[in-house]
């Protein structure tokens, strides 16, 4: 009984010490604690836009704390992506959304494709292509069968065994996964 309580006390002491050290370290090195609360430090990252509404969560896990609902089309800052999750900042919060919910607008923060053009149809009838031969429908309609190239193509074909050997050497392992159905609209 006594031994147990002693152990309990020492455990509490160690925990307190541990947390103090961590707090001390973070204050000394200016490290922020995990983003549980709104933070204004959103300078890093890239401009991004929400492709769909999603829950902003405290950690890259669908069971972690819900911080905020981010609406479709919201402009956010994207910090990093890992696995199926992207860390973003929105409305003063920093947290995680599903990687497929957010689309980076450019790598360096400068938007390349005009956001206003989203959803609009691209300009049609652009057929002139500089440089190598173009692949527009007119030119594709005027070509003829190239038997020599088909033969060359065939020479690169590999069999099942070679593909399996390649995967094995690369450490690629086949996984079971069902096809994904079309979303219900």
């Amino acid at each position, binding site marked *: 009984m006594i031994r147990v309580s002693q152990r309990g006390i020492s455990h509490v002491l160690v925990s307190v010490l541990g947390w103090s050290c961590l707090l001390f370290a973070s204050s000394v090195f200016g490290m922020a604690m995990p983003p549980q609360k709104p933070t204004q430090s959103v300078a890093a990252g890239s401009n991004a836009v929400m492709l769909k509404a999603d829950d902003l969560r405290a950690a890259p896990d669908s069971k972690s704390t819900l911080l905020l609902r981010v609406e479709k089309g919201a402009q956010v800052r994207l910090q990093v992506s890992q696995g199926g999750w992207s860390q973003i900042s929105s409305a003063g919060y920093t947290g995680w959304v599903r990687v*497929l919910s957010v689309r980076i607008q450019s790598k360096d923060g400068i938007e390349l494709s005009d956001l206003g053009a989203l959803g609009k149809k691209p300009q049609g009838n652009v057929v002139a292509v500089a440089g190598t031969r173009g692949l527009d429908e007119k030119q594709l309609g005027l*070509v003829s069968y190239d038997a020599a190239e088909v033969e060359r193509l065939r020479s690169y074909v590999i069999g099942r065994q070679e593909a399996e050997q390649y995967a094995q050497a690369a450490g690629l392992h*086949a996984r079971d996964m069902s096809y994904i159905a079309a979303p219900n609209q």
Partner: protein
Amino acid sequence: MTGFGTVTHKGMSNMKPGFLWFVAVGTVFGMFGASLVQADDLNDLFKGYLKSKIAPPAQEQPVTASAPATQEVSADKPADQLLKALMGGNVSEQEEVRIGQQIAGNLLGAAPLVRDDGLQRYVNRVGRWVALQTERPDLNWHFGVIESDDLNAFAAPGGYIFLTKGLYQRLNSEAELAGVLGHEIGHVLRKHHLKLLQKSQGIAAIGGLLGRKLKNEHEVVQNLIGNGAEVVARGLDKDAEYEADRIGLVLSARAGYDAYALPAVLAEIGHVAKDDKRVSLLFKTHPLPEDRLSHLSDAVADTLDALPEGQSGTGRFYRLR
């Protein structure tokens, strides 16, 4: 060539709206005659097949490496058989491959393979490994990178898959390559282009000529696919593209790659200005990358949550010089 011209004009007597299209195609054919020049080359290819039909014991011409020749005894000429199969929707694998080869050869006539053996072998290894994760693992899958600055990828029936050098150079990892190839493999699996051809107005018109003017299989195939490789520039249904995206993502995940690599490619393509000539055909024949990403996102939802992280294969990715 003249044979084809005569046929079209003769057919004008029972003209239907669909037939106009066919006639238009025929007119272009007549004017340029480009696609029919190749008939000589191709006739050689198909001669063996025709011979085998006329004289069965003769040595089989290896038109396709994988599919065995159809052994069914029929009074029909091969051309008629193919047409009937297409019209009835029962295209054998051998016939599917023959159509795909014709389209592939025409596409290569527009843009030849990049002269880099290492690259082509690499793409075939990755592509075949991804294709092994499908319900058609033993199809004789062909993969190639073609000489073009465009950003695009193509699939033809029977397992012919191409991507442009321009698109390849935009990729950052083997997982992204696997995703792109997986999307095209999806088109082959679901026979999207074959169905497009079967639905096309031209087939009914050609069907009307059954057993008459179209002498050989080559003419049937070439007439069916229209001019040259124009068929690959014909857009598929949007849903077919969304479906291919879902399949591409699943196949690359099955193959052990990062499932999010294909969406990353779509996002990357979305960064190209919409009026950039290098994406004009791509955007004309596909939904915009933003829409594709949205659909993929809705479809995937939480299905990948339990999936362990896959490989990106960035270190192995074959860089073009």
